[in-house]
């Protein structure tokens, strides 16, 4: 069992507070993604769980043990770094077996474990290569191999995909998900990419300025964002916000806005007149950017659309799927 519990965690450097009183309970075998814009404290939080940074106050428990003052090696965790942290002078085999050699396992045991990990990650043919001879995706897999051979209670991932190109990122995302299903270990995963968060997580923790904004399943966050920050962070393209004279904001996602002439029948709707300022065909859909009384509205229209930029258009908002926020940006 390896639940991870963070209780009233605080972190400050000198007088600058990075994280102020944060608590999260992570279940055994759960895949939790910490997501937020850069500088929100998510990497610091991960590094504190790893033991690479001290905590200023609070209590971190992994499994049954309080690990506050434990060395990283005694916490029974493994970490995958953004830059992979592979040792360039060692072969893939040596890299993967590094931690096992540190644990003074017998040669035969090391070989068995490395081969198993290589099998899972399809690295068997690459074991004699050096990191410089590998592609970005292969390096990423080696660094995951180094983590899984140690059979840790918790995996920590620190933005593992951000050095890869978009296509590879999608592939590796799927591999990480598969990996979680195979090894069934608690995973804490840090990213700034909401797509990664949505696709990978059992639960997402959204952070901003060192504070938790919301914790929930991806669909919770998508359907019931507690504030404007979460609403705009989750979903792509971003949610549209239309504020009325009383300061109440209607948040509505681009996929809930239709061209009025081409809209399905819906229960609660509102029609607005806007001017088209940009048209981006994506193939399966077209992104339209329109100006509505000084507010920029993004619309995700299915298929191909043939309109002229500058043209007046009428948009139908599916208000039934909208979200209302008060002046402070809190959901009402």
């Amino acid at each position, binding site marked *: 069992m390896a639940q991870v519990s963070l209780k009233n965690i605080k972190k400050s450097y000198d007088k600058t507070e990075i994280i102020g009183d944060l608590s999260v309970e992570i279940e055994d075998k759960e895949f939790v993604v910490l997501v937020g814009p850069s500088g929100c404290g998510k990497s610091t939080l991960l590094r504190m769980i*790893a*033991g*690479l940074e001290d905590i200023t106050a609070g209590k971190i428990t992994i499994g049954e043990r309080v690990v506050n003052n434990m*060395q*990283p*090696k005694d916490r029974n*965790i*493994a*970490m995958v*770094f953004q*830059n992979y*942290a592979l*040792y*360039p*002078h*060692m072969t893939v085999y040596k890299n993967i077996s*590094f*931690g096992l*050699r*540190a*644990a003074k396992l017998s040669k035969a045991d090391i070989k068995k474990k490395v081969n198993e990990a290589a099998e899972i990650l399809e690295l068997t043919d690459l074991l004699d290569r050096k990191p410089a001879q590998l592609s970005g995706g292969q390096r990423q897999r080696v660094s995951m191999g*180094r983590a899984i051979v*140690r059979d840790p209670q918790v995996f920590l991932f620190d933005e593992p995909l951000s050095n890869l190109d978009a296509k590879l990122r999608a592939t590796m995302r799927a591999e990480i998900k598969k990996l979680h299903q195979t090894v069934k270990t608690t995973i804490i995963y840090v990213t700034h990419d909401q797509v990664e968060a949505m696709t990978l997580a059992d639960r997402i923790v959204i952070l901003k300025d060192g504070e938790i904004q919301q914790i929930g399943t991806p669909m919770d966050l998508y359907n019931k964002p507690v504030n404007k920050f979460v609403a705009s962070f989750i979903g792509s393209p971003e949610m549209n916000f239309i504020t009325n004279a009383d300061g109440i904001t209607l948040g509505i996602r681009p996929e809930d806005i239709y061209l009025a002439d081409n809209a399905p029948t819906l229960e609660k709707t509102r029609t607005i007149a806007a001017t088209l300022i940009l048209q981006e065909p994506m193939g399966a859909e077209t992104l339209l950017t329109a100006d509505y009384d000084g507010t920029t509205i993004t619309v995700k229209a299915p298929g191909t659309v043939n309109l002229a930029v500058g043209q007046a258009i009428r948009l139908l908002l599916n208000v039934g799927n909208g979200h209302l926020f008060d002046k402070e940006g809190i959901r009402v």
Partner: protein
Amino acid sequence: MSNNKGLTVGQKRAIWAWLFLVIPIVYFIIVRFYPTFDAFSMSFTDWNIIGERNYIGFDNYVTLFNDPVFWVVLGNTFEYLLFGIPISLLLSFTIAYYLDQIKFGHGLLRACYFVPFLTTAVAMAWVWRWFYQPVPIGIFNLALGELGILQMDFLRSTTQALPAVLMPAIWAGLGFQIIIFLAGIRSIPDSYYEAAKIDGAGDRQILWEITLPQLRATITFIVITSSIGFLRIFDQVYNMTQEGEGGPLNATRPLVIHIYKSAFEDFEMGMAAAQTVVLFTILMVITLLQLKVMKKDG
């Protein structure tokens, strides 16, 4: 078409580059390369600095290799190298390794280690020469006396003189090597150490499997530069031994002093040139060997 008249941008750039390089190139050819090549031809003559240069074939080399003193000198030169390199490498790495880990007083300590590198070798050699004197002048013998240990001869002993001369030579180069090691250590990404810490590696495994292999290029550089330095040792020996002879009984005399004495005391320029060629060959072979060894699976 008239558009193609004149030079391309690339050609113009190359011409400018060469224009700027002309002066250093001319300088190097006249002041460095010509004398170097001249030394090779001089080594086959009996030139005595004022007379004719008569070609005498390999006579200088034959005389040289039959001279027992030359072999003693060559032996001394290699002793400087074989003791100097490991000792200075071990010292400078150890100091740099621990200096890197401290924050308080880091700059001051680093400056202290670097000062000898900036100081004139002659002045340092004389200070050390005094250190090695018998009581009441020499502090080493004073210290030994205080501890009730027998006095040492140091520079007057045929066995202790060479290590005694080597000490300040190592000390003088230490600051430079420490700075280079520090730069090398600092360029190793932190994430390597963090990953190692999480994987449970101890200090030993981190040192042998991460730090040292990552410093391969740094070590190569230091070994090559300091090899050249020790093989060319001169100032310390010249200033710490009687009349700069490299005594007692040639016990500290290195090849460069031998060359100097042949050329400017005995005026046997041809013989001195032959010795220079020998030194040149040794330096080149050692450097190439080191480069090759260090490059292997690097």
